[in-house]
């Protein structure tokens, strides 16, 4: 009963709460000038303050899947290190599952997990199962519970036959599936994913994204994903937080992001009529062939509905496809706008 009470409380509250977070680093200035000045600098180095994260605030509800993205050096990793308790903030308030990450790091460690695409937590020369057994001991998972959990995850991630193989014999995709199992083993309430699909082929990427999303949905795990691959964001997350130069650029749902920031849409139609004559300001013809027309609509001048109605008045449509620009283009535009600001 008590356990369910606790779970209910966790479900209700914010999984992550960040308020006015700031993190500054002091970095030594390079010594320049004459020899004596260099010696002086060496003995008494001068420092400059660099603000890696500047006054950002956001909240993540329990069970949400959030992409936390930004260009290199934006402050993503610093924020995640603060959220996991590895670093202390200069100022501001951070709560993860109701805990202060820096003060309660050990307690929080039982409730959070992490997958770093470029690092491995598996012992290279040993079968995967050996590392998982070690992790079960580290996370105080009772033996029976561990065995059941491992069986369930191994079946779900289709790695049952891989568990007895040494890690060095696994492909990158197989290894990554095992890494994710290792991170889900102790049932974390929040999982931090840093480039989980980096270096994988298209099929492996699709499998990993699908597995992460399904596992998160089934167990209500809050995900905070950082990735430069926009497909990771589209396939796994429902919300996007973009930061740049330490500041919050955007915090919106993926759906809103796509609808609000799409300035142009591409429409492809196939008609019964062989010849399509089409000329309209704000609409650019991209491709034209018998029975086929591809146009780009300027959303500032027309709506898709108005263009489609007009087409329907003049032609018999057999097929119609509406495409938006890829998420990558939207994010790139936001990065450029952020830099210009």
């Amino acid at each position: 009963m008590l356990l369910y009470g606790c779970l209910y409380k966790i479900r209700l509250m914010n999984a992550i709460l960040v308020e006015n977070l700031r993190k500054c680093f002091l970095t030594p200035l390079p010594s320049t000038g004459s020899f004596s000045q260099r010696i002086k600098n060496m003995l008494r180095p001068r420092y400059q303050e660099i603000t890696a994260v500047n006054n950002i605030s956001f909240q993540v509800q329990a069970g949400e899947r959030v992409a936390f993205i930004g260009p290199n050096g934006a402050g993503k990793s610093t924020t995640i290190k603060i959220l996991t308790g590895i670093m202390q903030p200069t100022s501001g308030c951070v709560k993860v599952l109701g805990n202060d990450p820096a003060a309660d790091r050990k307690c929080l460690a039982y409730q959070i997990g992490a997958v770093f695409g470029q690092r491995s937590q598996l012992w290279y020369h040993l079968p995967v199962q050996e590392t998982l057994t070690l992790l079960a001991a580290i996370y105080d998972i009772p033996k029976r519970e561990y065995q059941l959990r491992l069986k369930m995850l191994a079946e779900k991630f289709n790695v049952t036959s891989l568990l007895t193989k040494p890690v060095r014999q696994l492909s990158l995709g197989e290894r990554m599936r095992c890494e994710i199992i290792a991170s889900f083993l102790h049932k974390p309430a929040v999982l931090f994913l840093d480039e989980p699909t980096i270096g994988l082929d298209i099929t492996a990427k699709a499998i990993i994204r699908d597995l992460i999303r399904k596992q998160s949905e089934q167990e209500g795990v809050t995900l905070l994903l950082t990735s430069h691959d926009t497909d990771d964001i589209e396939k796994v997350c429902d919300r996007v937080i973009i930061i740049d130069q330490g500041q919050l650029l955007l915090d919106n749902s993926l759906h809103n992001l796509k609808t609000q920031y799409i300035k142009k849409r591409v429409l492809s139609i196939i008609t019964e009529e062989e010849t399509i004559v089409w000329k309209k300001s704000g609409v650019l013809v991209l491709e034209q062939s018998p029975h086929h027309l591809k146009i780009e609509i300027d959303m500032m001048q027309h709506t898709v509905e108005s263009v489609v109605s007009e087409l329907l008045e003049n032609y018999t449509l057999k097929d119609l496809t509406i495409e938006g620009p890829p998420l990558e283009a939207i994010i790139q535009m936001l990065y450029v706008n952020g830099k210009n600001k």
Partner: protein
Amino acid sequence: MAKISNKYWASIDIAIRHQLAQRGQLVGRFFLYLVIVYLFHQVFNSVQAPASRLWYLAITEWIILSAPPLAFQLAEDINSGQIAYFMLRPMHFLSLRLMECIGAFTVRFILLGVSCVGLGIYLTGYFPTDILTWLIGICFGILSVLLYNAILILIGLCAFWLRDIKTLIYLNLTATLCFGGLIVPLSFYSPLVKTISFCTPYPWILWWPAEFMTGGHVNVFLALMSWGIWMVLLWGLIIFLYRKGIQSFVIEGG
């Protein structure tokens, strides 16, 4: 408490398995040991040194070659940012690495111990003392490696500020060779060098157990006291440096 010991045991256990899985490395280490002991056997024979010198050297080499490269491991963790991964776990980073080091040490210590006894008897034709003295000496040897590991941890932690710790590793090896009596016992040193050596932790890493196991005169109480004082001092410094390092570091690749 049981849960904590379970974590430590699991870390030691996996390191033992990992070490055993790297058979090639173990064989390489065995041959290195063999070559060193054989070469010194030839050198000692040519200067007609007593056979106990070879036993002394076989024991010091056994201890030093059993110690895993903990300093490099820690520096690698710090420089690569892997430390962040370990800090997310509900186990202290240094404890985890130390337990893994003990696991790897156990395998090496047993393998090289058997080699030491086998080679020593084969090359000298006798066993220096009795079994009980050796069993006590092995316990001292284990304590020595713990002290040596403390120095290696300290050097590894310097990577927070220095990044490259190769120079420190080299200095440590030189100090071990000179002040620890890696090749010849400290009793051969001049009084001044001997006094300087006993002011460092190195005699309590190599000279003490090797001298004891070869039947030399060792004040065990003084040795244990010195070992204890150095352990307290070094671990105090380790905890201080670790806290300072964690406060100041920025993980690369962010």
